[in-house]
């Protein structure tokens, strides 16, 4: 893409992938974040992509979201988009222990595909509004996230609680990681010559 003189510099692009079992509310979280709306009726997703411009810490960035299918016959199909992702929201439902257990698998697959233990990753316990149906305690979830060394956040796509926080936290992680890697590259002698040119 040729950049015209008047075209503003494209904002940084962060690619977020929504993962998690079927019916935990990945699409609901996405739609809430994107359009401020909560869709009641459930329709299994295959794959949907979204793009949103947000101002993150004073800087305009673009967040690409890939909303994926919870039910997939073959896990390998996911490899490709896991590979494309820069950060992951690993969602389970606090009312469904199975979905919580499934996060383990997702985590493992992501790490395998990305081959990176420090990939930006958030464990998200959704449906926090349904407190009376809770099956997964905060402590259990927290323990797992600590074990993975990732943050844990409980959200409600219905009430919009922590929805922005989840996405922004992840975007921030992606951003800082990118910055760090850039810095590393710049600090390398190969790139320092570029600086001189600039």
């Amino acid at each position, binding site marked *: *893409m040729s950049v*015209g*003189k*008047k*075209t503003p510099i494209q904002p940084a692009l962060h690619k977020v992938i929504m993962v998690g079992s079927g019916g935990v509310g990945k699409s609901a979280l996405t739609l809430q974040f*994107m*359009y401020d709306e909560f869709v009641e009726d459930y329709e299994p997703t*295959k*794959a*949907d*992509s*979204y*793009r*949103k411009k947000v101002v993150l810490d004073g800087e305009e960035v673009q967040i*690409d979201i*890939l909303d*994926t*299918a919870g039910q997939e*016959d*073959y896990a*390998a*199909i996911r*490899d*490709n*988009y*896991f*590979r*494309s992702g820069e950060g992951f929201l690993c969602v389970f439902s606090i009312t469904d222990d199975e979905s919580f257990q499934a996060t383990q698998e997702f985590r493992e697959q992501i790490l395998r*595909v990305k081959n990176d233990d420090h990939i930006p990753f958030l464990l998200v316990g959704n449906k926090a509004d349904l407190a009376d149906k809770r099956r997964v305690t905060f402590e259990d979830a927290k323990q797992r996230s600590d074990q993975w060394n990732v943050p844990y956040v409980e959200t409600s796509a219905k009430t919009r609680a922590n929805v922005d926080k989840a996405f922004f936290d992840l975007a921030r992680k992606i951003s800082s990681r990118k910055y760090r890697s850039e810095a590393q590259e710049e600090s390398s002698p190969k790139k320092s010559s570029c600086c001189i040119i600039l």
Partner: protein
Amino acid sequence: MATIRHSLQKEVFDISEEKLIGILNVTKPGKKKKKISFLCAAINKEKPVCAFIHQIKENDKGSLKKKNTWPVFELQVVDGKDENKETAEFDLTFDRVYKWVASSVPEKNSFIQVLWKICCRYLPKQKPQFINISRELLKEDGDKIEGGDIIAPGLDQADTEDESDFCALSEREQIDLERLILKSDSAVSDAEAFAEQLSKDLTMLDGANIHSMMASESQVKALMEMIDAALLEADKIEKRLNNYDEILLYVKDSIEKMAEKNFFIEQTNANNRQLLETVNQLITQLEFPQEYEKFLTNPAFQINNLTPVIEAAKALETVIDAQIPPHLIHLQLHFQAVKDQKKRFERLRSEFSKHLARNLNNLFIYHGNDPGESLSFHAEKLALPRHSNIHNELMPYAPLMHWMRNLDPKAFQKLRQTYSNSMSKLYERDIKIFFDEAKQPIAGGKRLRGSGSSQDIAGMSGVAGKLTSLSHSRTGVGAALLGIEREQWGGELDASERQKFDQIFEQVLSELEPVCLAEQEFCISFFNLLSSSEPKGANTSTASTPGSNTSEESGSNTPSDSSRRHPLKQVSREVRLMMSELFTNLEQQLTSFVNTFYRADSYCCLYIYVRLSEHVLSAEDTGSFLSITFGSCLIQAKRNYDNFMGLQINSIKECRVTKKKCGIIPFVTNFELFAQTGESVFKKSERRGDLDKWYAMLVSCMIDNIPRVAIEHQRTPPEVVKMENYHVLYQLLSQLKLPGLENQRKEAKQRYQEALNAYVTQYFGRPLEKLNLFFDGVQAKVASGVKESEIGYQLAFSKQELRKVIKEYPGKEVKKGLEQLYKKVEKHLSEEGNLLQVVWRAMQEEFIQQYKNTEDLIHRCYPGAMITLDFSIEDILNYFSDIALSH
């Protein structure tokens, strides 16, 4: 009863010359079948009178006939049966006893009464016995008894008739006679002597009588004389009276004459008084104080001693307008004095009018050169100079102006014209400068390209020069149109500049309002434009009708802000005309301003449209000049707006993508910014509906034009173009949440899904093409009726053939095919579309599905042949993982 009585009299008794006196309806007692008959008492009309009782019956033919007749003197007993008890029965005894039953008790009683009377009258001596009858009935004077009325008149009548000829001696006569007879003892014995005695007595009495008559003669004579004397006396008196009468007649005449004269005199007096009054009135009406004259003939128009002049002028007006009673109008032509006075007034009027006109004329022209309250070239705030000082200075002359309007319409018109001319110059200059200044802050020495033809703002210096120096008109390229890449958009204003423009435009409008309103109010009250409230109708000529002195001080004298809230009545045509004469260039300037910015940045037309609408809608006096000017400008703005939208639509229709990879079509990308701008401008406007309407049209137009662009593009498959663009459009619409676009949103989503499916299935590239072809054939055979188990015996689809085909697709080849496919997809899809993962996932799914179908078919059609594909599903998944890891 009366009719029966009548018919009885007629049919029965008239024949026998009898007179019916009493009648009773009777029956015989004891008989079952009661035969009605009548008992009638009658007397014959001949002398001697005899009374009869008849029984009369009605025979078969209906005529009445006497059945029995008894003379009354044969009547022996009348038996009423019971004295006390009321009963209708009674008996009459003649030669034998006859028993009767009367129809009613009162009738019986009255009949008995009649009988009693008859007996009393005609049989005084040998009355029959009346037994068992109440005493009351048997009184001689039966008239008083009730019920007797019916019969009595008949009897009485009969009595009087009888007595004229014959009368029985009354008791007294009888006694007298008896006494007379007794006196003369011999009477009975010697009738002759008795008669002689009687005649003697008679002669004696006669003599005495004559004697007394003779004795009274002299007295009669004396009486006669006295009467004669009295007559004479009466004659005299009559004569005298006649005399008096004559005299009185004469007096009456003279008095009448006097009265007439008196009446005339009074009328004359009244007329004179009235005349005097009228003349007095005329004089007071036409009286014009001398001292005023000098004010008028030699007026001083210094602002501080205007009062006496105004007073004098008013007085003159009253005098000239004096209402002369209609009956005097023709007289007035003959009154020299009145004529003279009128002439004098006329002279005064024209003289004063001349003076006044000259003076005011000068004044207007002088004020026409007024620079206004410091034209603020360096003032930070944009301001249109006010001319309230002129208004304030002129306002004292308002009464004189009204005077002029009433008394010298021609001069008034001229003056008004002068005012219009001189002030319009002033306003023209002000407005021009004002608009130039308004243009400056935005242009700010910067680009304001495309600013209109130089005529619009000819002859302006400074900023205007910059404006005109910019490119004359813009071609399609460079305009901020949806169908054009953003990089190629011209130098339109950016958001903050637009905001500034919006503010300035608002300022322009709100600056214009008070100035215009102040001028309008001034004109109305100064020229008294509302006074002639008579309908002007088609007569647009401004010639005002004189004499309408009901000058109504409308509005306040000082055009202040507070008074402009005062709801003005329908501003008349005259006012509007005047205003348009004053602000000749306002509309032109405003339109030019609007158009300039529209050309500079077409998005401005949105702001202009909304702002102007607001002002027009909030205007209270819809008929005022300013409202109408704004209104016509609004029409222009609306035209620009619609034109702008039309251009957008055209640009969508004409949009071409020349890039190698089509990607997102510009109009889809640009729509986001467009809609955001639109939303920010129309946020609270009442014109929101206009925007929504265009949104719908624009989006529909986009939906319709995406396939066109898709087909026209050389390299990118149409499905990809459609898929990517519908996807972005769908996302945009979801995000913008524009009202009324739900259908378009759904349509975009559906079209996106369709395009995705079409792309995945059709443009899949078919990594296992030959294998697929083979099995397509197998499926066609099965569909045409070949049993699945017999497919293997078909020549084209034998096991050998199958093996051959399978051999062409070893795992390596498949993996290579998939890798190529992935690269192809990557090449097709654009970065902005962001659909690679979505598409690839669908393709993976599709490939697995195809694999499974093939496996299934082999299993069914070639059972037990031990033929399998060269690669397993695990292999495929591994290929996928490898592809994933390879980039």
